[in-house]
């Protein structure tokens, strides 16, 4: 094992690091005098090329390796997830290529790339230390990105809130990790699993599990650790909000699953409910806790979303509800549920990027993300509202869109685990409620008459990306095989 070998293994990540340096350099030395728009276009194009190169490497020269007890892994599954992350970053970058909200263009794009690097390492590890480091890299980038719109005090406020919550949850996570380390004398997932197998549930392990759950719960915005989400979704610049809502979710859920399924498999317990035999049967372990968190997220997210008038906040609460659905996959923690989770979170991320992009355009034209800004969208921007139609219905889980298949695979996987039917019933009931608020948005766009009839001036490139996203949501719906391996 030499350093060149190591660098070869981590080539995709290395490419992104180099790209970020190039982006900074080009923006600093070459494009200093250009307009903000030109700089954004140039920077995001360079970054896109870098991500594309990394994808190219992952597709055509995939590596197989497990280094140092799982400090760094490269398996087909992980490569797939990394490709998904890079693709989502590309979409975010392309959609931000026409932004004008800041003059620190190079830094903004670089931070998006740093977050991407964090996510790529995050999914490629089975080691507590690297997990924590890459999670922090991701989180710190996201805090700064959230605060990036200096003209908006709410952006800073949201960032501060995000940072304070995040820092606290990081402390919880680290505390839990230190206990695991003390128990296993190792930071590797498999060693921890072995140690826990040897000495099941003692108070120390319980404390470690609880604090870890708090930390991860914050990252995925599950109830009761969700308070930051609505504010951040509402006030962050659109590209930052997009990144938080999409690829950061993919990475966090993936590693959350891996950690729970590998390191803590021995203490999973049971959260099954046999209505006629023994009632709600909770065996001590982390699954009952997680099952309750998931149930709370589904209920609260869906119910509170009904009351929202800001579309961004509505998406935030819907994200909380979706986090609840996705947690079900972790509660089930079977191989089948992992693939269902990856499908679900990927299609969810695609849909959310599209929805946020449309909110971004609407905000640009009407300077508000209130529901009333969407009045009569179908006549002011027919193509955009057709895409909105697709995204909202996909989020609600209407076939034949990707969101429905995601839910279906997920629910089938969860039901296959004995005793979890009650969670699925709750989830399906929740998605029945969710149709109400998604239809509220569509009602504004299609039914309500517009306040003024002037057509939108949508940037053609943004519109193209949005249309592509909508097409992919339909495509993954009609031909779900494309994503299931």
């Amino acid at each position, binding site marked *: 094992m030499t350093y060149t070998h190591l660098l070869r293994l981590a080539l995709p990540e290395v490419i992104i690091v180099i790209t970020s340096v190039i982006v900074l350099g080009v923006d600093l030395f070459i494009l200093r005098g250009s307009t903000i728009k030109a700089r954004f276009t140039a920077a995001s194009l360079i970054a896109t090329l870098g991500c594309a190169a990394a994808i190219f490497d992952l597709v055509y020269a995939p590596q197989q390796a497990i280094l140092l007890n799982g400090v760094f892994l490269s398996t087909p599954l992980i490569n797939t997830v990394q490709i998904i992350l890079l693709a989502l970053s590309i979409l975010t970058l392309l959609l931000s290529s026409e932004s004008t909200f800041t003059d620190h263009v190079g830094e903004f794009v670089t931070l998006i790339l740093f977050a991407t690097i964090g996510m790529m390492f995050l999914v490629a590890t089975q080691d507590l230390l690297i997990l924590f480091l890459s999670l922090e890299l991701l989180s710190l980038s996201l805090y700064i990105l959230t605060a990036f719109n200096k003209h908006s005090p709410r952006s800073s406020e949201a960032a501060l809130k995000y940072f304070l919550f995040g820092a606290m949850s990081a402390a919880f996570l680290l505390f839990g990790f230190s206990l695991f380390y003390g128990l296993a004398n190792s930071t590797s997932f498999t060693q921890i699993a072995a140690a826990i197998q040897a000495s099941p549930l003692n108070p120390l392990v319980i404390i470690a599990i609880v604090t870890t759950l708090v930390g991860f719960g914050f990252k995925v915005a599950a109830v009761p650790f969700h308070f930051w989400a609505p504010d951040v979704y509402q006030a962050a610049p659109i590209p930052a909000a997009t990144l938080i809502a999409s690829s950061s979710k993919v990475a966090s859920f993936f590693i959350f699953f891996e950690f729970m399924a590998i390191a803590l498999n021995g203490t999973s317990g049971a959260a099954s409910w046999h209505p006629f035999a023994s009632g709600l049967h909770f065996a001590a372990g982390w699954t009952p806790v997680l099952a309750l968190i998931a149930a709370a997220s589904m209920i609260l997210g869906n119910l509170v979303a009904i009351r929202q008038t800001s579309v961004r906040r509505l998406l935030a609460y819907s994200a909380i509800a979706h986090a609840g659905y996705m947690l079900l996959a972790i509660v089930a923690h079977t191989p089948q549920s992992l693939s269902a989770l990856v499908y679900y979170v990927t299609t969810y991320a695609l849909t959310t990027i599209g929805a946020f992009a449309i909110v971004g355009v609407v905000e640009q034209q009407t300077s508000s993300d209130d529901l009333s800004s969407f009045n009569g969208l179908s006549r002011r921007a027919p193509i955009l509202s057709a895409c909105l139609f697709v995204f909202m219905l996909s989020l609600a889980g209407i076939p034949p869109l990707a969101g429905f298949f995601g839910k279906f695979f997920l629910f089938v996987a969860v039901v296959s685990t004995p005793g979890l039917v009650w969670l699925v019933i709750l989830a399906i009931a929740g998605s*029945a409620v969710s149709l109400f608020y998604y239809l509220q948005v569509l009602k504004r766009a299609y039914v309500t008459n517009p306040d003024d009839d002037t057509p939108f001036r949508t940037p053609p490139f943004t519109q193209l990306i949005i249309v592509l996203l909508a097409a992919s949501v339909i495509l993954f719906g009609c031909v779900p095989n494309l994503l299931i391996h």
Partner: protein
Amino acid sequence: MLAWTIYISFLAALLLLLLPKNNAAAARLLALLAAIAGFAVALTAFIHHRTGELLTIARIPWIPSLGIEYHLAADGISLCLVLLTGIVAIAGILFSWNIQHRTKEFFAFYLLLIGSVYGVFLSYDLFLLFVFYEIVIIPKYFLIAIWGSTRKEYGAMKLALYSFVGSAMVLVGLIAAYVASGLHTMSLTGLAQAHFSQHFQLMAFPLVFVGFAILAGLWPFHTWAPTGHVAAPTVASMLLAGVVMKLGAYGCLRIAMTLFPLGLSPWGFHILGFGSWRDVFAILAIIGIVYGASVALVQKDFKFVIGYSSVSHMGFILLGLMTLNQIGLSGAIIQMVSHGILAGLLFATVGRMVYDRTHTRDLKTLGPMNLNKAIPFAAITFVIAGMASMGLPGFSGFVAELMILIGAWRTFPILALCVGLGILIGIVYVWRAMQKAFFAEPTHTSTVAHHEANGHHASEALPPITLPERLGAILLIATSVTIGIYPQILLKLIVPAFNSPLFDGIRRGSWQ
């Protein structure tokens, strides 16, 4: 070939969106052509159908990892309902010839709805069926919310949520069946032979049955129907009562009863005299029949009368399903077709012929307008449709209700008497509405004279019944009379279908 009913509708819906703006005439024409083409395809298949045959249209793997197939097939029951959809689709477009507001979008949603309805009737893979079933909800919502009248947004949302809750229950049942069978298939024929345990069937059956029956207007989950019908534009009411409610009844038969026949078996104990789900749903169906008819009796709004009559007539279908004998089940299918035609006709008369001209549906206001003189065609149509819906011999309603009554008599003799009561009330409410709306007697007090003058004035101004309306009405009446005089045309398809292996479970249950 039959699959083209679906594809034509979807393609035409897409084409409509691409049409240039403000070209209402072209949009109407395109929609009409698509509907006629769909009907022609359906009719061809109907004529060429060989008795008892299960016609496989397409069967290709769709999601192999879950064993889900794109499987379209049709037996006699599906064919009857596909034909019904074709007829109602044409009539609906004829009756919406006067839509001026956002015409393109209207017909696009319309055809999307029709295409998905075809899809539901032709699917033999449960997953595929569910997909089509859910697509139906969305155009339904927008048709009502954009083009509707009285409290349209409320009615549309209520309808959408009721449907979605129903389909959520169905989804739970389907996933449970899929996992419990362990067969790794979603095929209807596959799962029908899965032999689920009786315990499982007793739990899954009511879930799926109620899930579908919500859309079929099962009492007490029917409340979406009257508000939805009243809020909807005429054509949407026609589709809603004509075919969408049939989707629910079809699902009850095709999925709930076929997959979980043991769900109908006795529980082994009695609560309040109910010994099985079969008793429960039969009673609910009868309550629906009597309740719907009684409420229709006291309505002031003309459209509410028809809305509640739909609930009553759908009760017959559900009762027919619960008889579990051949004559009752066949009667249920004929009632589906018959009610699809007649409800369409009634809604068209009330909504298009009367309301679009007088702009009121209040029976008190309509009376003095002397409508039987002003628009005699509407009056005649309503009389014919009303007679048919009362169950006068010679019309489809008679055959259907008679068969259901015979079937019910064999299984639930006492309850069949209550149904008779429902039929009696049915005659009264139709007479009442007919008399109040079209044949109100002129009165001689001064205030009413004033009213009458107004009414007379208004009646002069009423535009005459247009050609498309006449064609639509004639099409529907002709269909009803054909079935009424020669029910064999449907029965020769339906009865062999019930003898197919798919219904083994039900037959084993209580076929005598």
